[in-house]
């Protein structure tokens, strides 16, 4: 135990003397939390629409007015040429084109039905999806409006009507930052826990100071604990800084208990530290360690449901997330912060991540040899 105490003293001294690490610990959360959520706004707004009105009737004008009045769309062009509108899309001036054919009003009045045509720039799938959905709903509203003025009110009730009300729970303002910030907190903690720890150990390998340790009576487990504990503490510190920033800048106050978050973070850190340790065992230079950790963590983050939903992934990818500790933490963070989930609610997540921790750390400890 005494040995461990001396080891930890040395480790902490070295960490705090390293200017790069200190900067990282404070600047990284700041940048990631302050800039990233502002940048990572997936809310779809201001869809530019180019309307091709070949009818120029009162109905068509009514529709166009409705569209330009809507907050979803920005009318960028009102033309009679479909080619012109397509060019707008090509030049990225418009995302959506709505074509109102020349016989629109006439057909509606005479035959009771009208045809509209919309083209969407589907390179950005989300925009196209939502753009289509919003435009459809505006058109439906328009449809209802003209029906009301055309048809006598009593006739309406002949149709059965289902009124659908929707409630948004946990994030009623549909604030995208509430979605992103917990995820970013997870990334922060993960980076400190695995990336920095792997780099630290490999640096010793590169310089040669590891040999010096191997020659002393320091036991394997003491050395490893001496490396894990400082970064474990640092991870929790970064988490705290992150949460304070989240509170100050985004007003995000966890619905659930802080205790739950910290318990999970503590266990989670053990598993990512194990990962960092493992990486350091198998790499020789800092460059390799950095690239490999980066690679692995990137895969974990991408497949972890940070900004695309895990549900929509193909079967094989969804199965892979079961082995992805990052995915668990992202989900838990969101659950606890936004929904107020309790320790009991996340028990399976907790146990699984603990399991990863045990597995990874054991593997790392076993493969670390003081003499080879």
């Amino acid at each position, binding site marked *: 135990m005494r040995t461990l105490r001396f080891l930890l003293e040395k480790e902490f001294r070295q960490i705090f003397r390293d200017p*790069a690490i200190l900067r990282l610990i404070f600047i990284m959360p700041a940048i990631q939390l302050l800039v990233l959520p502002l940048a990572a706004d997936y809310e779809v707004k201001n869809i530019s629409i180019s309307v091709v009105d070949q009818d120029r009737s009162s109905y068509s004008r009514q529709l166009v007015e409705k569209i330009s009045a809507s907050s979803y769309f920005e009318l960028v062009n009102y033309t009679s040429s479909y080619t012109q509108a397509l060019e707008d899309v090509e030049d990225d001036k418009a995302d959506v084109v709505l074509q109102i054919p020349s016989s629109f009003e006439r057909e509606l009045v005479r035959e009771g039905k009208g045809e509209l045509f919309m083209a969407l720039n589907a390179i950005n799938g989300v925009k196209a999806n939502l753009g289509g959905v919003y435009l459809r709903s505006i058109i439906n509203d328009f449809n209802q409006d003209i029906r009301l003025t055309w048809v006598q009110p009593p006739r309406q009730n002949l149709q059965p009507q289902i009124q659908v009300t929707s409630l948004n729970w946990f994030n009623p303002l549909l604030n995208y930052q509430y979605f992103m910030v917990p995820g970013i907190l997870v990334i922060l903690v993960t980076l400190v826990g695995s990336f920095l720890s792997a780099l630290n150990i490999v640096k010793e390998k590169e310089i040669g100071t590891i040999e010096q340790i191997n020659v002393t009576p320091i036991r394997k487990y003491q050395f490893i604990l001496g490396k894990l504990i400082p970064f474990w503490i640092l991870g929790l510190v970064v988490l705290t800084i992150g949460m304070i920033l989240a509170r100050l800048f985004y007003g995000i106050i966890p619905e659930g208990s802080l205790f739950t978050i910290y318990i999970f973070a503590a266990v989670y850190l053990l598993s990512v530290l194990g990962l960092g340790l493992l990486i350091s065992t198998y790499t020789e230079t800092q460059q390799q360690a950095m690239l490999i950790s980066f690679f692995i963590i990137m895969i974990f983050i991408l497949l972890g449901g940070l900004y695309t939903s895990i549900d929509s992934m193909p079967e094989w990818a969804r199965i892979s997330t079961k082995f992805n500790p990052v995915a668990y933490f992202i989900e838990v963070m969101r659950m606890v912060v936004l929904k107020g989930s309790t320790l009991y609610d996340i028990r399976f997540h907790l146990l699984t991540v603990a399991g990863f921790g045990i597995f990874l750390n054991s593997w790392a400890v076993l493969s670390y040899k003081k003499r080879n």
Partner: protein
Amino acid sequence: MKQFLYFIRKEFYHLLRDRRTLFILFGMPITQILIFGFALTNEVKNSAIAILDNSKDEATAAIIHQLEASQYFDLLLNINSNAELESTFQQGKIRMAVVFPEQFQRSLLHNNLAQVQLIADATDPNVANTLTTYATSIIMDYQQSLSNGIPIPLMVNTEMRMLYNPQMKGSYNFVPGVMAMVLMLVGAMMTSISIVREKELGTMEVILVSPIVPMRIIIAKMIPYLILSMVNIASILLLSVYALDVPIRGSLVLLVAECFLFTLTALALGLLISSVSGSQQVAMLISLMGLFLPTIMFSGFMFPVENMPIPLQVLSNLVPAKWFYYIVKDVMIKGTGLKTVWMETLILAGMLVVLLTVSIRKFKVRLE
């Protein structure tokens, strides 16, 4: 000239002998493309939902059946009370709940009016939006089916067509972004690390004392990464075309030329970083924080730039990757030519010139 070639050869050896690094530098773009192409999608489907059916009649059964049949929803859980609702959400089991009041069918038949409540987990606002819209349209379809036989006057029908990406593949958005990311990583970060490592080990001085012009040394260091970058581009394009069915609609020559231009820009950035970094660790950190992260954030491939607050939008113009992404998207996916992207190309070229001048000057100062 011969000495120069020897130098290039040495640099190649460094790169080729570090198997692990090489593996990552090759494997990363390929893995990213595969993940982005096959695993990540902005589509919403397979969402788990729950039903709280207080009515349990034919109408609710029909609607439930429709929901079940849809590819958007999965795993219908049956809940029995309002209390269960919150905890089911909290345990992360469902994304939305559909609540039917009592006497649903009776209200519908007698009063022509009934209500359904959709409760969405708005943790992910876009998913919540999409799910409620899907569910509403399914319910509306059911409503429509009830009134079949009664002609509804004034039906407006809308036909939809998806341009450039009819199958709504996420990959069309991602591939240009992955290209930008990889080129930045290999071109800028690896170059800067390679130069700084020489400084750190002290062998830089040995080289400086040799008869070779220092600038040539730097160029020799960049060449392996230039070649590696082009190889990566080739593999990304091959994968995209053959595995992801992403087309190259525009001119391949133009595309490759733009990639080359961007790679050079990345290399110049690498040089700049190396001239301000004292150690490998610092070079890595600057590359990651100062280059990579902004590339991901501001290029526009993951997060829409137009949604960002104005100051950030302005900032994004400084990121070369933003212009590159725009160019690749246009040339590759839309199939446009130089006449559309000439301005962006000029901007990128301008950035290259500025970066080269600044970094060469800084480097020379450092040497003295």
